[in-house]
Each structure stands twice: as structure tokens, then as C-alpha cells.
């Protein structure tokens, strides 16, 4: 399950103004998502989702007949995406539209995932994130604007997408060791900080600059990186450097 971070939430404006907030009576308030209109989404007490409107009003988000609901990302059209866990303990993706309608999604071919964590949404409501399968393996997923969901894995390794831009490019990591960018046409560009054993991206800006953390096994000290220019691209056919030889880039399997 998604573990609650034991703390209070804050919002720091670009001007430096800092405010804190809680969901009333919550043991913890965790806000993983914010849009350009300052709507914040998150979850509290490890059980319920919430939306904090741009005016600061907090509204609970609870999927009917779910034992847990988590809101994780929101786009500028106020499409709120997250996860809910049904009464049988199975996780499902959830998509809440600005008009209040709610839909869910699952991973095709996945055997009762117990955790789905949407991590990125763009202006077209394309969604990416990861899920944990019933065998405790981690996989990436991608939901297009029409609602079709595909797996997004590099070989058989754990894959963690963490963002998607408005063009549909996904930034992610795989095997806890390498970063990659997947373009809309399926091309994969691997990212490895020089001499580092682990390169784990956290996001990408509109110029293609990628940030993330890197570290070496020698000391395990994590550092922040900024990569200012994209690598040349692989085709969707050729497996990228660092991917297991037995597994080609698998998208939509």
C-alpha cells in the first residue's frame, strides 16, 4: 500500500510565502500533486484522498466502497488521478473529472495488482505511473487520453515512470539503476550519469533537461543531477544500453 508520510503539508509560493495545512483531525497529510492553478491533491491518515482548492478549501475524495483512496496528481483541467483499494484489497487506478464523474482503470494482463501509483498527468490527461503486481514486482504503465492502458517496462526489470509532459514524453527509471526517456513514438533514450551506478530521474522540463538523483555503490551518497541535453534516441526495436539482453523494450505488452 501507499505509505503515508507522517507529517503536515506545506505550500511554498514562488514568492517565498510559506503556508502549512492539514486535513482536519488527520494523523498525517501528504500532498504529492499540484497543478498550475495551485490545486493540491493528496491523501491523509493513510486512508483518504483530498483536494485542496486554489482558495484553500479542503475536500475529501473517497471512492465509494473503497477501503482506501489516494489522490496523487492533478492537471490544469482539474482531472484528479490516484488509486483506490477495494474491499478485497485490490488496487485500481481512479480518474476523477472536473464535473465530478469518476472512472477507474486497471492494468491489462496484470494479476490483481495491490498497488497502483499514478505519478504523472499531462494536459491531455495522459497518465503514467507504476504498479505493484501480486508477485511483488514493479512495473510501469501508461494510460492514454482515450483510457487505454498499457504496460511500460524495460525488459523484466522494475520500472518507475515519474512524469509525462504535454507532448507525451515519459521520464522514468528501470532496474533501480538507469534512467530513460520514452518519446511519444516509443523511442527509448537511456540516461546514466557518468561513473554512477544508479541514475534515477525525477522529472523533465520543456527543453528536455532531466533532473534526478545519482549515486555510486561505493559510498551510497545521493546527489542531484541536471542533464542538459538528451541522448540520441534508440528505436523502439533495439534494446537500450543497460537493458537486459534477454528483454527488449516492452511497451504495451
Amino acid at each position: 500500500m501507499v505509505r503515508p508520510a507522517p507529517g503536515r503539508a506545506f505550500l511554498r509560493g514562488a514568492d517565498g510565502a510559506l503556508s502549512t495545512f492539514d486535513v482536519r483531525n488527520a494523523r498525517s497529510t501528504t500532498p504529492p500533486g499540484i497543478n498550475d492553478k495551485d490545486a493540491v491533491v493528496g491523501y491523509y491518515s493513510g486512508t483518504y484522498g483530498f483536494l485542496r482548492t486554489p482558495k484553500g478549501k479542503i475536500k475529501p475524495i473517497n471512492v465509494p466502497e473503497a477501503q482506501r483512496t489516494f489522490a496523487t496528481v492533478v492537471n490544469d483541467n482539474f482531472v484528479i488521478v490516484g488509486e483506490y483499494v477495494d474491499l478485497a484489497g485490490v488496487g485500481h487506478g481512479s480518474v476523477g473529472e472536473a464535473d465530478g464523474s469518476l472512472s477507474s482503470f486497471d492494468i491489462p494482463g496484470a494479476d490483481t495488482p495491490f498497488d497502483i501509483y499514478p505519478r504523472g498527468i499531462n494536459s491531455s490527461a495522459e497518465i503514467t505511473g507504476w504498479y505493484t503486481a501480486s508477485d511483488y514486482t514493479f512495473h510501469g504503465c501508461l494510460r492514454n487520453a482515450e483510457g487505454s492502458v498499457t504496460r511500460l517496462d524495460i525488459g523484466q526489470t522494475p520500472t518507475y515512470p515519474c512524469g509525462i509532459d504535454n507532448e507525451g514524453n515519459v521520464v522514468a527509471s528501470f532496474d533501480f539503476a538507469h534512467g530513460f526517456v520514452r518519446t511519444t513514438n516509443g523511442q527509448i533514450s537511456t540516461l546514466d550519469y557518468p561513473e554512477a551506478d544508479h541514475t534515477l530521474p525525477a522529472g523533465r522540463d520543456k527543453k528536455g533537461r532531466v533532473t534526478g538523483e545519482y549515486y555510486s555503490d561505493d559510498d551510497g551518497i545521493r546527489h542531484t543531477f541536471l542533464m542538459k541535453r538528451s541522448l540520441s534516441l534508440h528505436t523502439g526495436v533495439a534494446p537500450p544500453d543497460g537493458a537486459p539482453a534477454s528483454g527488449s523494450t516492452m511497451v504495451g505488452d
Partner: protein
Amino acid sequence: MSQARQAVILGAAAVVVILTNAGSPATAKWKQADPPGAYPSSPSGINRGGTMAGYYWATNNQNDAHGFIRSPNGSFTTFDAGTGHTIPTAINGKGDVVGWYGPLLGGRSCAGPMAL
């Protein structure tokens, strides 16, 4: 040479070109972007304009994590939201940062369950 044989040779040559050019590190420019004195640090995200948000521990002070913001020109702003760790989780296009603070670590980072 038959046209079929020529096609096979050209196709094979194309594959070789693809694999040879794939992922050339010479085209990437990497830069360490730690806040001054960070030991260690981790970014939570970057907005479309290139402003980054993240958290770090100060050298020789492993007690609490602090938040940081790195502007596109490379300047840093650090902050604490309250008592305990300050963990930014996301930054929007305007540069507003959201996150949480408290005495214990938990939750998620991009690479999965928070590793730090």
C-alpha cells in the same frame, strides 16, 4: 548482385547504424546540481521552466532534511517548512512547491518508496 541481396545488405547496414548511434554519451551534458553543502540531496521534480525542487541534508548534520529550490540560472534557495524534515514533493509551472514536513521519513520518491 540481385535486388533481394542488395535489400538484405542495406537492411543490415541500417540496423548497424541504429545500434552504433544509439545512446552516445557524447551528446549528453551532465551536471551535479547539489545545493551547497548538501550531503546527500535528492530532487523531487522540475517544472517546465527548469526550476527544480528537492530536499537535502547539510554536511555533518544528518538530523533533518531541508527543502531546496534551484532556479534555472543555478542559484539556490533553501527553506524549512517547520520542525523536522522538509520534503518537497512537487513543483508546478509557476514555481509553487508543495510537500510535507515532520519528524519521520516515509512516502514515495520518484524511484519508488523513499530510499533516503
